[in-house]
């Protein structure tokens, strides 16, 4: 997405398209990403509940993954996961 010049900005930077925040991929901020160990996961969904981005989703197999377009790597899921099934791994 090409960045707008100052002349192209709407007056007052009003965002006229509802839901357009999803176009902004905050995943680029991440320095660590969560990796699930499905062998330890009990599918309790606490990671899903606590994710402040709402980017943890449950797959058809019942296991959880983060949408890496939006995951900022905050590590809250790994901190809250009491069976310790989530490990935060450094991004390259």
């Amino acid at each position: 997405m090409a960045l707008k010049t100052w002349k192209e900005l709407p007056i007052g930077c009003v965002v006229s398209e509802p839901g357009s925040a999803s176009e902004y991929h905050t995943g680029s901020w991440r320095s660590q990403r969560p990796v699930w160990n499905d062998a330890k996961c009990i599918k309790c969904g606490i990671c899903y509940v606590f994710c402040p981005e709402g980017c943890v989703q449950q797959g058809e197999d019942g296991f959880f993954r983060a949408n890496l377009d939006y995951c900022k790597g905050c590590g809250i899921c790994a901190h809250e996961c009491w069976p310790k099934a989530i490990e935060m791994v450094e991004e390259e």
Partner: protein
Amino acid sequence: MGKRVGMEVAIAVAEAVGLCDIDMAAVYPITPQSHIAEHLSDLVANGEIDAEFVTVESEHSAMSAVIGASGAGARAFTATSSQGLMLMHELLPIASAMRLPICMAIANRAISGPLNILNDHTDIMPQRDSGWISMFVENGQEAIDMSIIAFKIAEHKDVMLPVNVNIDGFQLTHMVEPFEMPTQEEVNQFLPPFVPHATLHPAKPVTMGAFAMSDYFAEIMKAKDEALKNSKKVILEVWSEWAKLFGRSYKPVETYKSEDAEILMLTMGSMGETAQMAIDELRDKGIKAGLVKLRLWRPFPFEELKAAVKNAKKLIVTDRAISFGGPGGPVFSEIKSALYAENQRPLIYNYIYGLGGRDIPVPEFVGMFEKVLADKTGQLVDSYEFWGVRE
């Protein structure tokens, strides 16, 4: 023509705002602005104007409420003073960044500490860089006129910026003066209905005041700066239209006997009228003195200022605020900076005066001129002094 009336200026400002078909006002009373809040709430309570008067618990809330109302498409007004303005501070740049044409009357008063309720400009100066159009008035008539004009400037489609009108507390707000109050028909003719650039409405959802990171922040600041600079063109147009309708013309920089003046003084606000009397006294003594009055503070009128002072040998800039530990008064610093690149410019002197309501009668102004005229070696040039302070 409007009706000739005698009235307290603060009450008259509320009356004038009442003529502007405002949709809402959120004003928290604070001395010396309180009469504006009280009278405006009377007008609403008595059904004289069809507007919401939102009673708020602080000035922070007042500014928040007018931001919300303006965002929803309402013509919104507020007024404050001193500590109230300081409490609004964090919201002022947000109102201008969101390009909300809010109008605010400021009854200028010293900021604490020590606690003081009287007039100077220490409250508005810290708000200088908030991105608001900012103007100063000299008397009651100007206070009324600018209170009405402010809406037209703010809401112009090429401006869409908030405007503050600075009215010296007590010195102006509490004076009973004779002036012409425009009629409702005249104001209706002058001020078209407010057409917002966007509104908060469920039928057409928008986001106002969204988040922006380093990839956009600078572009947004640049756009805001350009918007404020470009507003001068509209300000001049609107003042000229006002002159045609009401016969009272306004300029960003007003001058008095400055044409052939060798020594000039620059004032902002109500002190201009007293200084004008000092000019007359000096002229009677054969001294070529003149006065430059700065009405428009933001956007700063560079061209007009340069033209007004270019032939003078000496320029006394007066300030009613001080930048502690800095170059002197904020106006002084601004004027010096504006003239820095000019080949021909006057020697500039700075007096900080009238702080916390200290009265400055005509002989004091004459005294400033005499002191600067006596400075043959130029040792006072570019320096500042607290005028009349006890040593």
